[in-house]
């Protein structure tokens, strides 16, 4: 009886999902409601979770409630702590969700909502959630070991070292592109700049409060911090409306870039309790609050999607970033569909908290489905804008020109409508001087969210909601940036310590300062290059970030496949091989095109050649400040090409090493034994 009811219920969910998906995919020329997209996503997730995740849990890993997890076996009260599965889920979700799933889908909306939506929904069920889940299971069976360590143990030392260097490279590109998003959001915006600047003293106040006034009262300090954040929002408005103060905080891109670099350096050398940790608490609350608010806003308004299902830009001529829908939609949306970065978290703190093996399904697979839903919501928020407005905000100066008239003309030439004065009115309503060419995704997402919140709550608050959205996006990003810089500094000190042992000493200030300065200059270089790029910087840096993130996913999937094969489940290895093969096709096609495409808008080398020729002829193309700036841009192109090539070679090394291991195991020549910790029953361990 129960099984019959279950068949009916799951049959209905599957049918609803398939129907909604068909409705989304077949819509042409008419606007459809966001509810269809949400229904398609949620039903697909439910079916994926109920059937596919269960298959992986039972048939591959045979997750066993009686087998002690590291949290139980090595319980030490601080690192290894058996924790309720919903709490671990919350912790894991808060750690994997960041600006990535918000910005990527916003940028990919230039292809229309359909390509991005399909990739997010299908990619997560068959790829992203599988990766997180498999790596979590593998790490739980290995005392919570890290991805790099598992790559070394399972595949071999070469793969281990490549993974380590690749992580460092990825962090540099990640931080620079996220910083670029912040710079573009705060450029010429005194309101945003003041609000974000105030978050620094607020965090420091919280830090001092927690250190000296009320030690360890984290929630109390966070509550005070959140109230002060609201005050910062108000202070920003006050400054922006004050004619004497506003110009002081109206900053250019290059100035903001230098300030952010100084901030990253300070965050890396200052004690964590003063700046990093309190910021992190604030960010975690704001993050969860915003995700909930976005969901409530979308459910309350149920907006129609103004963006067409598919735009003409799938042919590669898009203004937001260049390149055809294949492979670039799969590079642009990483977090939300599949993100290699998650593998670092699934093999970091999370496996040390899991109290029962079967909980890994909810935490590994389930949390990633939730992040995917956030990506769908970000896509919806971007697609509630009319295409005319969306492209006017997201297309670079080199395409739109600098005036409202030239922008309206460019948008009309693409076949979209932009009413005269529409952009000015919109900018005014959100309290900004201009919204033209505010590339990077954050401003258009903020406009979309402000629109949703404003409609849900009855109107009149666009400006406040816009700056609230900008504030939380920048808060997330700066939290990733400051903590990332610190981690990068530790990694550099560790690497440098191989040559000069004293460099590794984290209490020796000269080494701390040198390593911090080195790491900040690495990402700062790319940031500055992006800020001064007439094509908006996102065009060159976001694809590099996507390639890097997917590279890390290929490393994770190689480790996952090796783990599955070495535990004698080679016949099920397709579970990770399927997303791995797809990512390899995507990463190599995208990497190849970024390197060798003859179109200077896509290929780094073609762009370098074009600019060299123009420079030799003495011509300055639109958007470039001077002839003297051009040799530097040619150098940047070649450097970006080298970075892309480095990432591709790293992937190759790891894949070749993995395949060698698989062949050895499957043909029975090598060791089949895996590095799993032998099973021990939970009954052997006393509970606390």
């Amino acid at each position, binding site marked *: 009886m129960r099984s019959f009811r279950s068949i009916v219920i799951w049959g209905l969910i599957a049918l609803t999902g398939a129907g909604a998906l068909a409705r989304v995919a077949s819509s042409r020329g008419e606007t459809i409601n966001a509810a269809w997209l949400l229904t398609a996503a949620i039903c697909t997730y439910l079916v994926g979770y109920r059937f596919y995740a269960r298959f992986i849990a039972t048939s591959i890993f045979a997750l066993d409630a009686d087998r002690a997890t590291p949290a139980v076996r090595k319980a030490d009260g601080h690192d290894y702590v058996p924790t309720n599965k919903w709490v671990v889920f919350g912790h894991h979700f808060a*750690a994997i969700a960041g600006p990535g799933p918000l910005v990527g889908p916003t940028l990919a909306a230039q292809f229309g909502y359909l390509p991005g939506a399909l990739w997010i929904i299908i990619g997560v069920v068959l790829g992203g959630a599988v990766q997180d889940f498999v790596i979590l299971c593998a790490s739980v069976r290995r005392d919570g070991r890290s991805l790099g360590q598992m790559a070394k143990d399972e595949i071999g030392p070469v793969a281990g070292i490549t993974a380590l260097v690749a992580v460092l490279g990825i962090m540099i590109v990640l931080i620079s592109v996220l910083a670029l998003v912040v710079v573009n959001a705060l450029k010429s915006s005194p309101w945003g700049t003041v609000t974000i600047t105030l978050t620094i003293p607020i965090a420091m106040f919280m830090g001092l409060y927690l250190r000296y006034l009320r030690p360890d009262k984290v929630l109390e300090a966070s509550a005070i911090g959140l109230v002060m954040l609201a005050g910062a929002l108000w202070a920003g408005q006050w400054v922006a409306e004050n004619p004497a103060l506003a110009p002081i905080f109206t900053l250019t891109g290059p100035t903001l870039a230098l300030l952010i670099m100084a901030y990253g350096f300070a965050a890396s050398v200052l004690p964590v309790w003063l700046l990093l940790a309190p910021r992190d608490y604030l960010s975690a609350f704001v993050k969860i609050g915003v995700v909930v608010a976005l969901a409530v806003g979308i459910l309350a308004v149920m907006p129609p999607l103004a963006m067409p299902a598919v735009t003409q830009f799938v042919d590669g001529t898009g203004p937001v970033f260049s390149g055809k829908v294949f492979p670039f939609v799969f590079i642009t949306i990483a977090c939300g569909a599949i993100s290699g970065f998650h593998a670092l978290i699934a093999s970091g*703190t999370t496996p040390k908290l899991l109290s029962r093996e079967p909980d890994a399904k909810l935490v590994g697979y389930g949390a990633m489905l939730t992040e995917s839903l956030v990506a769908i919501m970000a896509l919806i928020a971007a697609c509630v804008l009319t295409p005319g407005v969306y492209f006017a905000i997201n297309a670079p100066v080199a395409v739109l020109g600098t005036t409202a008239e030239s922008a309206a003309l460019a948008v009309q030439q693409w076949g979209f409508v932009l009413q005269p004065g529409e952009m000015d009115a919109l900018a005014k309503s959100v309290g900004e001087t201009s919204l033209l060419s505010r590339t990077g995704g954050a401003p258009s997402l903020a406009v979309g969210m402000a629109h949703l919140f404003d409609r849900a709550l009855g109107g009149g608050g666009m400006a406040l909601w816009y700056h609230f959205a900008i504030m939380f996006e920048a808060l997330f990003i700066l939290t990733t940036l400051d903590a990332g810089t610190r981690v990068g500094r530790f990694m550099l000190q560790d690497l440098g310590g191989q040559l000069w042992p004293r460099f590794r000493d984290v209490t020796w200030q000269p080494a701390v300062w040198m390593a911090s300065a080195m790491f900040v200059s690495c990402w700062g270089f790319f940031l500055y290059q992006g800020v001064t790029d007439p094509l908006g910087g996102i065009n060159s840096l976001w694809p590099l970030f996507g390639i890097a993130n997917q590279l890390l996913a290929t490393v994770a999937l190689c480790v996952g496949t090796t783990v599955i094969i070495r535990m004698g489940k080679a016949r099920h290895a397709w579970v990770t091989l399927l997303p791995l093969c797809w990512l390899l096709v995507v990463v190599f096609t995208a990497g190849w095109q970024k390197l060798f495409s003859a179109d200077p808008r896509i290929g780094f080398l073609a762009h370098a050649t074009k600019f060299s020729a123009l420079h030799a002829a003495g011509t300055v193309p639109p958007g470039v400040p001077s002839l003297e700036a051009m040799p530097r841009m040619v150098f940047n192109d070649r450097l970006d090409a080298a970075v892309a090539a480095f990432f591709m070679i790293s992937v190759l090394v790891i894949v070749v090493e993995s395949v060698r291991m698989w062949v050895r195991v499957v043909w029975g020549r090598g060791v089949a034994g895996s590095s799993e910790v032998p099973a021990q029953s939970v009954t052997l361990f006393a509970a606390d």
Partner: protein
Amino acid sequence: MPMLTGSLGKWIAVIRTVIGVPDYERYLRHMRARHPECAVLSQAEFARERQEARYSRPGSRCC
């Protein structure tokens, strides 16, 4: 503090774990149960030690 042993205390511990701050009470319970012979860290020492550990390795956050 009797309040912290009630349901409010439980919720506070849950929220703290979600944002990545481990629970001191839990640590104390563990040390008393398993290592009664060892000296325990004070609440402030424990908080400091955890914070330093958290920000010195990758894998505590994402993009």
